[in-house]
């Protein structure tokens, strides 16, 4: 009797299964890693660590910033993602450059970023300085613009002087284009204003001109080259860290 009941139970399982309630039904066959083109999967596996979940609040630039998406074109994105960004820690991802992604996957990432993070009219009709630097900047002028527009927010205190953006240590790890991108598009996730709001307190001010931006980047670059990274043993490198 008991056996029959059990046997019935066993055979009723597939019947229930047939009715659509089947938790054990296997997932779709696993794609080979190079065949994955789903944006969320690709982004979370390859980019989220540095650019943050959902493209913000990571240590590196917030790709989800609509102003950034409006500023940069597809070819540039493809160039950086495939080959890495010189002067920064952004690695190369294309197989042709020793990474793991096919060019179709790089394209899927770009298309996904556009779909998820682009907003129409991100600049309210104002046209920003171009993404790429065209002219050579003047570091001396740059310094005075920096003092006027940036310094008040970026003030090295005693504790963190060599951790701020004017420190050669920081600048050694960040390329000119990365600085330029941040100055123009801002980083809303960490409170860095865009080129229209680069002013004390982050108020709207006269937008930085193309020349201003060129000059500030040139100024910061000059600080980088000026700084031989201090040898570990002599630097007063102890800083009480910001908490968290």
């Amino acid at each position: 009797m008991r056996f029959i009941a059990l046997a019935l139970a066993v055979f009723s399982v597939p019947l229930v299964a047939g009715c659509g309630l089947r938790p054990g039904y296997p997932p779709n066959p696993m794609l080979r890693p190079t065949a994955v083109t789903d944006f969320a999967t690709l982004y979370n596996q390859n980019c989220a660590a540095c650019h943050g979940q959902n493209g913000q609040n990571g240590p590196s630039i917030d790709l989800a910033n609509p102003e950034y998406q409006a500023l940069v074109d597809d070819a540039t994105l493809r160039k950086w993602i495939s080959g890495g960004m010189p002067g920064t820690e952004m690695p190369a991802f294309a197989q042709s450059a020793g990474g793991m992604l096919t060019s179709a996957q790089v394209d899927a990432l770009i298309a996904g970023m556009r779909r998820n993070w682009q907003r129409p009219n991100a600049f309210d009709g104002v046209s920003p300085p171009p993404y790429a630097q065209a002219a050579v900047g003047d570091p001396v002028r740059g310094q005075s613009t920096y003092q006027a527009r940036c310094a008040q927010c970026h003030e090295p205190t005693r504790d963190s002087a060599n951790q701020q953006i004017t420190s050669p240590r920081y600048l050694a790890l960040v390329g000119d284009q990365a600085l330029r991108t941040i100055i123009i598009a801002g980083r809303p996730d960490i409170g860095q204003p865009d080129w229209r709001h680069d002013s004390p307190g982050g108020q709207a001010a006269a937008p930085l001109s193309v020349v201003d931006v060129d000059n500030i980047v040139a100024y910061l670059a000059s600080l980088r080259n000026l700084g031989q990274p201090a040898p570990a043993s002599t630097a007063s490198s102890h800083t009480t860290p910001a908490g968290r």
Partner: protein
Amino acid sequence: MRVNGTMSRVYKWFESRLQLEAPVKEAALHPVPRNTASWWYVFGSAAFTLLFLQIVTGILLALVYVPSAGEAWSSLNVLNHQIPLGWFLRGLHGWGSNFMVAIVLIHMAQVFLFGAYKFPRELTWTLGVFLLLMTLGMAFTGQVLRFDQDAYWGLGIGASIMSRVPFVGGGLVHLLLGGPVIAGATLSRFFALHVFIIPGALLLFALLHVWMVLKLGINEWPMPGRLVRRATYIDEYNKLAHEDGIPFVPGAFWKDLAFSGAVVAAVGVCTFVFGPFGPGGQPDPSIIQTVPKPDFFFLWIYTVLSYLPPQMETPFLLIAPLVAIATLLAVPFWAGEGEKSWHRRPVAVLAVSTIAICWGVLTHLGATTPWSPHMNAWSSDPIPVHYLQHATPLVRQGAVVFQVKQCRNCHSIGGNGGERGPALDDVATRMTIDQLRYKVVTGGGNMPAYGKNLSPAEIEALVSFLETLHPANEPPAYDASRRAVDESQSQPRPQSARPPAPPVARQTANRSANR
């Protein structure tokens, strides 16, 4: 009436030719000691039932499965997705296999603890040892037939184990793989092993095993102090069975049936809830983003191999299995007489429990593999947002360096990342900044030395990030001699003459809160 008459005539026609009635009746009704009709004695029959489940589901699977290197993987996906209930069938076969290995092991432990291997059942035990080996062989060859990444790499590891056999290693590998490398011939070979050779032998041995159980009688319930002696045991057993016995059917048999039914039901439920095993990714050696793992019952070997120092591997792999099998085979001949009850056999109890505990621990470790880096962590595990909330630009870059140099693959923060090295969430409370710098540059104790792979700027960024890794209410470790130097250098810099603006003020406030 008429029907019954016809039926019995047909039955008689067959019976007068086959003459099966008498032996079957004898087998079914033979008396067994009353106390062997116990729930402890059901595992053997359950294993036998599972063997039949495996045969039936296996035959059905073989109708669709294509044993060729190019198509095996996709034919399993066809079963999973295109054939109605094909996934269920695969699941039954896969779970049936796991249950069978488990039940065979439990059966063996029970037989051992109940002293049932002693005289006159030595040969039954010996066959049982071979049945265990063949069951494991079926589990392994079955895993290979799945021919996914796990199978592919598992086989590679199996082959590399074989190649270590002195003198004949190369030949053995060739024999196993059907060539020097894993290819179509390998799969044909394992298909033949899994479908013809091992099951044939398994069935034959299992029938002999059952035959002997019927002929020699089911082991009586062990009583402390009732010793087995070759001269007297058989008479004693027969007396017990006849004086205080019950017919095997239905006296003991209903429990076997009920338990077997329950086990089959459990296989069904597991399949229904958890589904079939794999197939995982395609078996392509060019796909290196994979962490191959053997099936459940071989995980412990995987653990042992990961922890053994390299020079111990070959001896362990080649000698330990032989010793284990020889020990199992020797047990009934070495201790064929004497005490059966576990109450009086502490060594036996200790041995079984030690093995069970070791096996459990090793399997658990094998399932979680704390020793292997998480190869994706560097690019996929985000830094917890609040760790960077008040970070300085350099600290933020340090976090990037931490990721890009793949520290995360071995070190978790915020609970994500590898476990090969310690979690670093509060590393700053353990180490001063100089110790951190030293550790990163020189490595040591399974931690690679990064001195040559990091620029000075990267090192500074990295350690300033690590230095922020401490709970908000617990200050970082601080070297007292540093303090004096820092204090003497505390002249304000020219730029900081103006009053602090919002972000800096925020940071400063936070900093003083931390003090």
